[in-house]
């Protein structure tokens, strides 16, 4: 959809963008991210010719934008700017339909489009259409900014840090809305931000830039797993890299679960469980090889019939290897509604136990950072 071919931009000797090659596919959500002055906004503005590249070509749908009149080009591309940029002397409806007005749509069609968009954003046209921007909250104003970009139904939308000036709650809400809107309307979006959380949340592909150059171009997942260099790694952030996906079971399990030998009697086992305050014990042999598990329910049901734990142990336990990614273990637990998951090595020696509590602890350390780290 949008192809950058060896694009550079120089400002009196200063290089803002250096030999940029990028291919944005149709329906893709691409975020450009980097520290201030890395050339991300310049890159964005070259797409609708607010800035002219010094070298190289930009193609939209195979057509070189140099051959398109800038004004006509901009009317086909939605644009949401850094500040809210609504026109204060125009009503909400006039603001939304400003591009259809430029394109000389008939008044009735314009009006219908304005109301349709307001409805889509969950803002009642009866209440909001005739208000002025100053009568809206910040989040609502930026929502109108997004609607204005959508008004003429352009396939491509450029966004320059649109949510930067909003409070965190409004920002989250608008990000969610934007993401679902993009999925639904199948728009191609190029989105500039300096907020990594925002980039990772919204993007299909993240382009990390520094000093006018692309450092890495990857899906959020790849970026987290394999940052190209230390700069990207520090930009992605340390806490985020300790993602649960990268942890293995060994790191999150509880290392010393309550175990019994198969020869132990039922009453003895019950006393042990009471003392240790657990509802399940694992049965291991003298070499520490896992044989099975016994829950308090089984004990209760079978205490008339059996004498030794070995007789009633459940031998068909679902187990995981200690080198399994923690996330897979958690998926297994959640998916199969398991209360616990014994961890074993290649020789079926018991290594530990993953419970729902270990899952919570692991997630907490990802979210708030590990204190021992």
């Amino acid at each position, binding site marked *: 959809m949008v192809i950058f071919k060896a694009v550079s931009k120089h400002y009196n000797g200063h290089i803002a963008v250096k030999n940029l090659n990028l291919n944005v596919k149709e329906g893709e959500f691409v975020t450009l991210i980097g520290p201030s002055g890395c050339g991300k906004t310049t890159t964005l503005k070259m797409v*609708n010719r*607010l800035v*002219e590249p010094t070298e190289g070509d930009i193609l939209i749908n195979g057509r070189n934008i140099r051959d398109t009149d800038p*004004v*006509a*080009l*901009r*009317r*086909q591309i939605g*644009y949401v*700017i*850094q*500040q*809210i*940029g*609504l*026109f*204060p*002397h125009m009503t909400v409806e006039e603001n939304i339909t*400003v*591009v259809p007005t*430029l394109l000389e749509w008939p008044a009735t069609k314009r009006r219908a489009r304005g109301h349709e968009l307001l409805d889509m954003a969950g803002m009642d046209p009866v*209440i*909001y259409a005739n*208000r*002025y921007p*100053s*009568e*809206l*909250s910040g*989040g*609502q104003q930026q929502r109108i900014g997004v609607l*204005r*970009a959508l008004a003429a139904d352009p396939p491509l939308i*450029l966004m320059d840090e649109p949510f930067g000036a909003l*409070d965190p*709650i*409004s920002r989250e*809400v608008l990000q969610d809305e934007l993401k679902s809107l993009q999925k639904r309307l199948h728009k191609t979006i190029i989105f500039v931000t300096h907020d990594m959380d925002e980039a990772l949340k919204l993007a299909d592909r993240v382009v990390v830039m520094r000093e006018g150059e692309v450092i890495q171009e990857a899906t959020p997942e790849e970026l987290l797993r394999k940052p190209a260099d230390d700069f990207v790694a520090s930009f992605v952030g340390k806490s985020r890299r300790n993602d649960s996906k990268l942890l293995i079971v060994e790191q999150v399990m509880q290392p010393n679960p309550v175990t019994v030998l198969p020869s132990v009697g039922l009453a003895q086992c019950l006393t042990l469980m009471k003392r240790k305050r657990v509802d399940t014990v694992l049965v291991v042999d003298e070499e520490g090889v896992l044989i099975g598990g016994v829950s308090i329910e089984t004990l209760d049901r079978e205490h008339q019939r059996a004498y030794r734990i070995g007789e009633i142990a459940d031998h068909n336990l679902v187990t995981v290897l200690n080198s399994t990614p923690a996330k897979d273990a958690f998926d297994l637990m959640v998916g199969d509604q398991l209360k616990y998951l014994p961890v074993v090595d290649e020789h079926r020696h018991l290594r530990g136990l993953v419970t729902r509590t270990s899952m919570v602890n692991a997630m907490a350390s990802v979210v708030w950072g590990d204190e021992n780290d």
Partner: protein
Amino acid sequence: MPADNSFLPWVIFIFERYWPLFLRGAVNTLIISLTGTIIGFFIGVVIGVIRTIPVEHNTGVLTKLGYKILNFLLLCYIEVFRGTPMIVQAMVIFYGAAMIFNLHLSPLFAGIFIVSINTGAYMSEIVRGGILSVDKGQFEAAHSIGMTHSQTMAHIVLPQAIRNILPATSNEFVINIKDTSVLNVISVTELFFMSKSAAGNNFRYFEVFLITCIIYFVMTFTVTRILRYFEVLLDGPSVYTIHGSQTVPEAEIRIVGRE
């Protein structure tokens, strides 16, 4: 002549005798200053807009040169008319037109002409300031959605700039009401000219000009109030409600007062 030769009877006598004169003078003053301010305002808008046209690096050399020359001429006009007293401008234009072009202007027309171009010079800079005062984001927003420079000016920037320069414009109007008094040097029959003849006839300068003073004040004060009323009208209601916030969609935040 009043029966009693003291102050107050003289004031009353002069007022009773000369009120048609005062009235005619006041009306002429208002006509000249109002017309002059309006024409000057339009001159200012045109020049202000021309002087803020952005010169892009990819503009043609000839266009650039033409624009530079035009800009220089406009600057000359502004500097000359701001830098010389209106009373002198009046003399130069009125007598100069008669001598050089053999053009005998009517004093009223000459008065309006002089006030207009004088105000125009001031207004050009006021409008330019007003345009520059509009947030840069507004230009960016307008350009990025595909407005040409002239559309941006007409629909986005000027409406906001004009609101911003309204107080300065009222100021110009008030100054013009007072400064038309200098036009008496080219015998425009405005309020000061009328007062002078009334005073000269009776040798009663203080009494006459006290009345004149009051009339000037009433005119300027009324005009200021009327213009202030329009400003408030343009600002819309000062009490309004923000409908909903992100956290509480049903919230109604009532804003009272603007300042």
